[in-house]
């Protein structure tokens, strides 16, 4: 039998495999890997979203315990519904959740947090989106897990679901100090 006759077919099968694997993994190509994982959280100081005062990276590190940083905005439709998930996670694990309000107005964010719930220990107000750039954020919502040592461990892009908390954030948090 002439094996060479099957060569084009073989190449075809290889191509199918090459395309099928990423498709079947269900990876969204719009979700980009974060370059910040394993790096120190950038230092920053922001005004808080409600009232007077400031929120800085140093404030978040005060407890020496891992915490979550959630970038959101009141104009972001995908961000609705994350608040309950984050609040439940904070209650269950005792982890602190900080919010960073991206390119918003203080009036809008206050009303929005009243309506959808406020899971945040404190919320920074990043009106220019500069802190977001330092975190490598390219859209809201994005959620970071940061260790008590200030090193970024994980980033989730898009809305958080209970399944994300149970299968990813929960186990990661247990491993993080």
């Amino acid at each position, binding site marked *: 039998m002439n094996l060479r006759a099957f060569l084009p077919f073989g190449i075809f099968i290889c191509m199918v495999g090459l395309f099928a694997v990423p498709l079947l993994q269900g990876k969204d190509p*719009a979700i*980009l*890997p*974060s*370059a*910040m994982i394993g*790096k120190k959280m950038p230092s920053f100081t922001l005004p808080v979203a409600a009232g007077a005062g400031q929120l800085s990276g140093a404030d978040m590190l005060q407890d020496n315990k891992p915490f979550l940083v959630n970038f959101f905005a009141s104009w972001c439709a995908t961000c609705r519904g994350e608040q309950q998930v984050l609040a439940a996670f904070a209650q269950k694990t005792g982890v602190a959740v900080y919010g960073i309000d991206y*390119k918003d107005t203080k009036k809008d964010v206050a009303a929005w947090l009243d309506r959808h719930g406020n899971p945040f220990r404190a919320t920074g107000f990043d009106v*220019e*989106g*500069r802190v977001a*750039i*330092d*975190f*490598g954020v*390219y*859209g809201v919502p994005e959620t970071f897990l940061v260790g008590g040592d200030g090193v970024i461990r994980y980033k989730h892009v898009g809305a958080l679901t209970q399944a994300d908390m149970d299968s990813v954030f929960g186990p990661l948090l247990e491993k993080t100090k």
Partner: protein
Amino acid sequence: MKALTVILLLLVSCPAFAVLPDEMLKDPVMETRARDISKQLRCLVCQGEDIDESNAGLAGDIRRLVRERLTAGDSDAAVLAFVQERYGDYVLMKPPVKPATWLLWGAPLLVLLAGLAIALRYIRRLPKGGE
């Protein structure tokens, strides 16, 4: 005549730029550098475009950031590194040459060599001496 008018109008019209006048630096040399750097940075939201031609909000923010870094005295390479540190290799329109990208950069050469090998084999098999 109408067609000619359309062609003439197309020739004199200028394309709409994403870079807004208030973003531009006063120093033309610096502005050229900024434009050059912007063309090497990918827009993360639109993904096919560089930030120089993208109208996305984040692209505008990074354009402003590039100009700020330049004004602060950074070299072109330092500005690119600044953005790359935050957004990874993906943000560079041209992926850097490193072990993970050797196959990517070497693929055209590999294909060329494979083609040459096939061509050589074919030529050798041709009957000798005649047309």
